[in-house]
């Protein structure tokens, strides 16, 4: 069916697999950095936890969330991508994810996040894909308060 083929561009197998079996879906206590992001429009909520080494390399990353397949998959991919990265690289990675969903000239997709490129065709869903990353950004800035993607 044409609809299902279209939708498969959004819900690719990698995305569904991450959302069904999210990686690092747990809490880190006590985390070096953490923040909670909230999307008031759809009620999605994600908390990102980072554990850092003394020289600020991500030793461990985890998340807790309730949300749609897109936001769960994105958070799951995030935790895999940031591990073993230094803070500067994590910031670069975050910027490249935002660039990936930029409406004018989308940038290349880092790692598994490429599977979420189909979200670009669904403007109302982009905030689902970026929620975890905005939350990560807040955690790096030391903001623990809920961030909205609005």
């Amino acid at each position, binding site marked *: 069916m044409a*609809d299902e083929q279209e939708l498969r561009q959004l819900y690719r197998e990698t995305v569904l697999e991450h959302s069904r079996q999210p990686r690092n879906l747990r809490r880190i206590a006590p985390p070096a950095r953490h923040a909670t992001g909230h999307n008031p429009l759809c*009620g*999605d909520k994600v908390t990102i936890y980072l554990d850092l080494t003394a020289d600020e390399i991500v030793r461990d990353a985890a998340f807790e969330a309730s949300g749609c397949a897109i936001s769960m998959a994105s958070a799951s991919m995030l935790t895999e991508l940031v591990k073993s990265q230094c803070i500067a690289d994590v910031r670069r990675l975050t910027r490249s994810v935002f660039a990936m969903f930029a409406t004018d000239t989308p940038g290349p997709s880092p790692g598994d996040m490429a599977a979420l490129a189909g979200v670009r065709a*669904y403007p109302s869903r982009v905030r689902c894909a970026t929620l975890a990353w905005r939350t990560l950004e807040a955690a790096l800035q030391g903001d623990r308060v809920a961030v909205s993607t609005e």
Partner: protein
Amino acid sequence: MNRRAPNVLIPSAHQPGLDVDRIRADFPILQQTVNGHPLAYLDNAASAQRPRSVIDAIGQYYEKDHANVHRGVHTLSHRATEAYERGRETVRRFINAAESQEIVFTRGTTEAINLIAYSFGQSLKSGDEILISHMEHHSNIVPWQLACGRSGAKLNVVPINNRGELIMEEFHRRLSKLTRIVAIGHVSNALGTVNPMAEILSAAKSRGVPVLIDGAQAVAHQSVDVQALGCDFYAFSGHKMCGPTGIGVLYGRKEWLERLPPFQGGGDMILTVSFERTVYNELPYKFEAGTPHVAGVVGLAAAIEYLEAIGMRRISAHEERLLRYATDALSNVQEVRIIGTAAHKSGVISFTVDGIHPHDLGTVLDQQGVAIRTGHHCAMPVMDFFGVAGTARASLALYNTDQDIDRLVAGIGVAIRMLH
């Protein structure tokens, strides 16, 4: 040969159903395809669509009659004022208010409730209580919280049961000598529950407590008679009843509106202004500061005339039948759980699908041309009560058909197949 006159009084049980095809032809927006499919619009509780007559009435007004109202001596100002006040009379007749002075135009239900929460709220003091319910829309919660913040009054919230009905014993228990006002929705936007307004009003009345009804989800779906109800305030929006956005109505009993202080200050709401003293205008202008949304009123009046020409009873009967059809069809899908199973419901069906987030379901349905709402429906306390972050919601209007429901159900099947 039988010479008796034909029986023109058709018993209501045998009223002819709606000619839905003809009704659909009146709505230009329904004639399009969305994502390659004919549009099945099932998001009417968020906003309904407009018939051609409403769109034309607004266009005609701007093309021929527009000027500011209640001001100029010139012809167009006179025409605009006539159109505006005719609209007020149309609304009065539609909800059977005693006088057109009791009809105040606002931007919508939200502003109407804010008006009362502000103006009525001026008299609140510490220890007073405002009685609302657990199933209210945020717009019938937050204005009262603001009033509480200003006055020291507090909210008392009537709980609901797991069918999504008010627990009426609790209502009666909480309605006390501390209660200053009761503010309750006629129909829940998140659950479809139709609340027992007669019981609420008679109990409140016996204690002399005024009642505000949030009628946003009721007026387009059943006939509303504010005098028969006996409510003190009734609020509703134009855009949920096939009228324009940005226009709404506050009905207020004259005795109340006369006593309440103004909400906003400005032009039109005054008789005389000096720096020492301002004399407020008479009703309803006291509550209509600034240039009003005249085109909105013209469109709203056209919407009311459209609904009346079809007949509110026939609309109710059509939607009731469709609600039963939809409820049965959704109940047959094993993965679907309907949230809100009150004995008395209007055409709103909230539901979840096992293992599928409402947002994903909404996208999959949209791809198939089926428009529903997903999320918390501005009723977060309701979502908390049912332990869900959000639901999918299909909501009905006079132009919906069995086919719309069939496509919803088929679309849910696609989502289950793809996302499970």
